[in-house]
């Protein structure tokens, strides 16, 4: 219902996928603040899929409560105290489980799509 909704229909990133993207981002980039995570996902995803940047915060709190991500205080580029998010050990393990699961299911779907009658 906000203005952005009306200007251009965007496809929201599914919840499970967003978790995977955040975990992967934190693994490759190390500790990041929220804006950093959002920017990184946008960059890697390219312009075709638009992220409501705010939607990473509910995902982050979910990951935190599951014990996969933890926070610490740091200083932003604008010289402000902000939360930095980083992967925990459990988070790293979870990321690898999810990557394996993801690859398995994409491979499965791919085989079906390639299958000839």
């Amino acid at each position: 219902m906000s203005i952005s909704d009306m200007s251009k229909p965007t496809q929201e990133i599914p919840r499970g996928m967003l978790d995977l993207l955040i975990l992967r981002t934190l693994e490759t980039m190390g500790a990041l603040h929220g804006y950093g995570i959002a920017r990184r996902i946008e960059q890697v995803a390219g312009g075709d899929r638009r992220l409501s940047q705010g939607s990473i915060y509910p995902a982050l709190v979910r990951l935190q409560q599951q014990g996969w991500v933890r926070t610490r205080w740091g200083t932003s580029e604008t010289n402000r105290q902000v939360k930095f998010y980083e992967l925990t050990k459990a988070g790293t393990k979870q990321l690898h489980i999810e990557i394996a699961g993801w690859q398995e299911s994409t491979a499965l779907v791919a085989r079906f799509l390639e299958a000839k009658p």
Partner: protein
Amino acid sequence: MRRAWRRLVAVVHRDRIDRELDEDVRAHLELAERDARSAGLSPDEARRAALQCFGPIQAMKEAHRDERGLPGLEHLVRDVRYGLRAMGRSPRFAAVAVCTLALGIGANTAIFSVVDAVLLRPLPYRDADRLVTIASNTGPGMRREAFTAVSYPDYQDISRLTDAVAGAAAYSNDRYNLIDAGEPREVQVTRATPNLLSVLGISPVVGRGFTAGEAHAPVAIVSHALWLSDFGGDMRALGRPIFLDGKPFTIIGVMPGNVPFPDASTEAWIPIWWGIADAPAMAEMRLYRAFSMVARLAPGASLGKLRDDLDLLGKHITASGEATSKFGTGERFAATALRDQVAGDARQPLLILFGAVALVLLIACVNAANLLVARANGRQKEFAVRRAIGAGRWALVRQLLVESVLLALAAGIVGLLLAAAGLDVLAAQLPHGYVAGIDGRVLGFTVVLATATGLGFGIVPALRASAPALDQSIRDGAGATVGRSHRRARNLLIVSEIALALVLLVGSALLVRSFIAVTTINPGFNPQGLLTARIRLTPERYPTVSQKRAFFAELVQRLRTQPGVSAITFSDGAPLSGRRRMVGTNPQRIRPEDPDQFLAVEAIAVGPDYFSTMRIPILQGRGIAADDEREGAPPVCVVSKSLADRLWPGRNPIGQPGMGRRDDVKVVGVVSDVRSESLERAGGLAVYSPTTDDDRAYDEMWLVLRSAHPLRVAPALQAAVRSLDATQPIAEIATYDQIIQQQYARLRLITALITLFAALALVLAVIGIAGVTAYAVSQRTRELGIRIALGARTIDVLRLLLSETVLLVVIGLGIGSAAAFGSTRVLRSLLYGVTSTDPTTFGAAALALGLVALVATYVPARRAGRVDPVVALRNV
């Protein structure tokens, strides 16, 4: 699990987490804005771009909260807060709704606590629902309805039905004079087989139960109450004696405090055969019926199985031709669950009261629902706004239900206070030994009832109010006329309130008529100014009849000269005292064409002046005189009118051979019938004889004296007994007015309660109907204004409004009459002198309710007739 805990923590720390999230968002936007500016945008454009990329902040915060916390709980908390605020905005509405519902809920709570105490709470025995009582029916053709005591051989036969019975005990109730250091008093004692405690599944709190070898031993188990009052709860009471009729019984145990077996007034338990000289013979006589029985069902056996086995046993005994009573052979058994036996007569009145309070609550709910509908109409704009900013229909319904449940819970609290106050009155009327009060169970009931009530009366208004008709409500608030659906709801309300109230009014009117009829019954004697005292002489101190006679003769002699005593007599029975001695006779011996071979007649041994003291009219011949007590006097009897009519119809009974111990007894008089069993039951067959003609007289006697101030004579009576024998207690002393009031105490209580509930229903219905009419008038001000502007007179407007209501009231009365017709039959056993479908009562109740409903409509409607059309049309 860990996540659930963290969610809970997040709910508790919601303010801090929200603050931190705000920080994150602010930092995020700042960074985004900086990047956008460095890409060449103006500060304004940069800010807008940052916000756009971020997406809707409020929605994100909601998602954040839902993700981390417990969304259901938080919504509930928010709804409750909102509801409380909404209530605070209209305190008058809240107060009216709470008071209305509190009356309904309070009445239900009070009655429930009694129902719970008497009917629902388990009896204090192990697996109490496996316990049954067994009674027997003998007599010619076994046509007598009453099942009574069993014999010892019956008990032994039933104990051997091991497929159905896991254990059975026999017992009988007895009264003894407890004579020790204190004031002598009569106590109720139960003689029981030694296994009674194990059958009930209880054990003494102190000491032990009977052993199998103690069936004849002078040992006693005492009640907790007696242990406290006579021994101060001292452990050393064990082994000490209590003196029953002056005989020592060694105390071997103390019962737990809550054992009301066979009833709560029992103070001691002794072995079944103690002191009975011919016990071995009695134990083998099938016709010696002196025992009650309690049995425990065998594991896996049902009550039906026991009944089948008992039927077989009965047939077997009947077939054997063994005498089962003085009147012949044949026997039949009946088994009843102990719980039903104990609750007995209290069950039906309690269920009736429960039904009545349920009706009151329904009326209260209808009223509350109507209040909610009216208020929801006033809040249409608020709902429309909430919907416009994104609240779904479910969110609105939930919000409204939370509000109605809040109202009901508040009403529940007020209702509990009302119930607690009312219970003080009710508890005194409970069967002996029951305790009703507000406890955890009652509290739980109230909470569940209040919640259900809140949902029940809230659901329809909530669904209606949340129905999407929002453009209209936003635009014009109050419509020119009332919508059809609201009018339908209003009609339904008036009809149902009238119908529900009528059911209660009819019930109440029937009971009031019965009560008036019962209190104006002529019992056949004049109870005013009569004082009675029941005296059971201690047999050990007065072993012979002549000693007993001498005691009573002396007592009467001393009291006769007492100032204030105008007449005095004695007898071995007293009407309405609950104790009657029945003898069986064969009427065909006197009147061969009589259809029956067996007639139960009440036999009363009376002293001289009995009929004049009681003021029982002598219809023919004379009463029993002092001369009849002389030794060698010819044996005489006096019969009641109905007995004379039965035995000698159309003939003069005087001089006929009558009924008595001796065959040469002659009838010397006929007296009018006395209602002896109960006030409601018309007078009985009775035969009166002199006390000298009956060996069994004098065991227990009623002294009856007449005085202008009977209570003032009571101390003189007590003093006279004490001066004759300081160890002799008076078992009961009461005026006859008290005895008679006891007779209808229960009817009076039920009548008072049902009438109270009917009055509540009437008041609630009047409030409801008046409120609904007033609201309808206020909604239709514009329409009425137009009518008046077009020339309608006040009377026309009134007629318009009243005619609508009259139709509804008539429909409601019709439905209510039908419902009452179907339901008042439950009152039948309580009614006297009026049938449960008495047309006069129905008509009067309907007429009264109809008039009240019309007044309730007229008063607010009259205001409509005075509507100023100019004001009405301008103000909409």
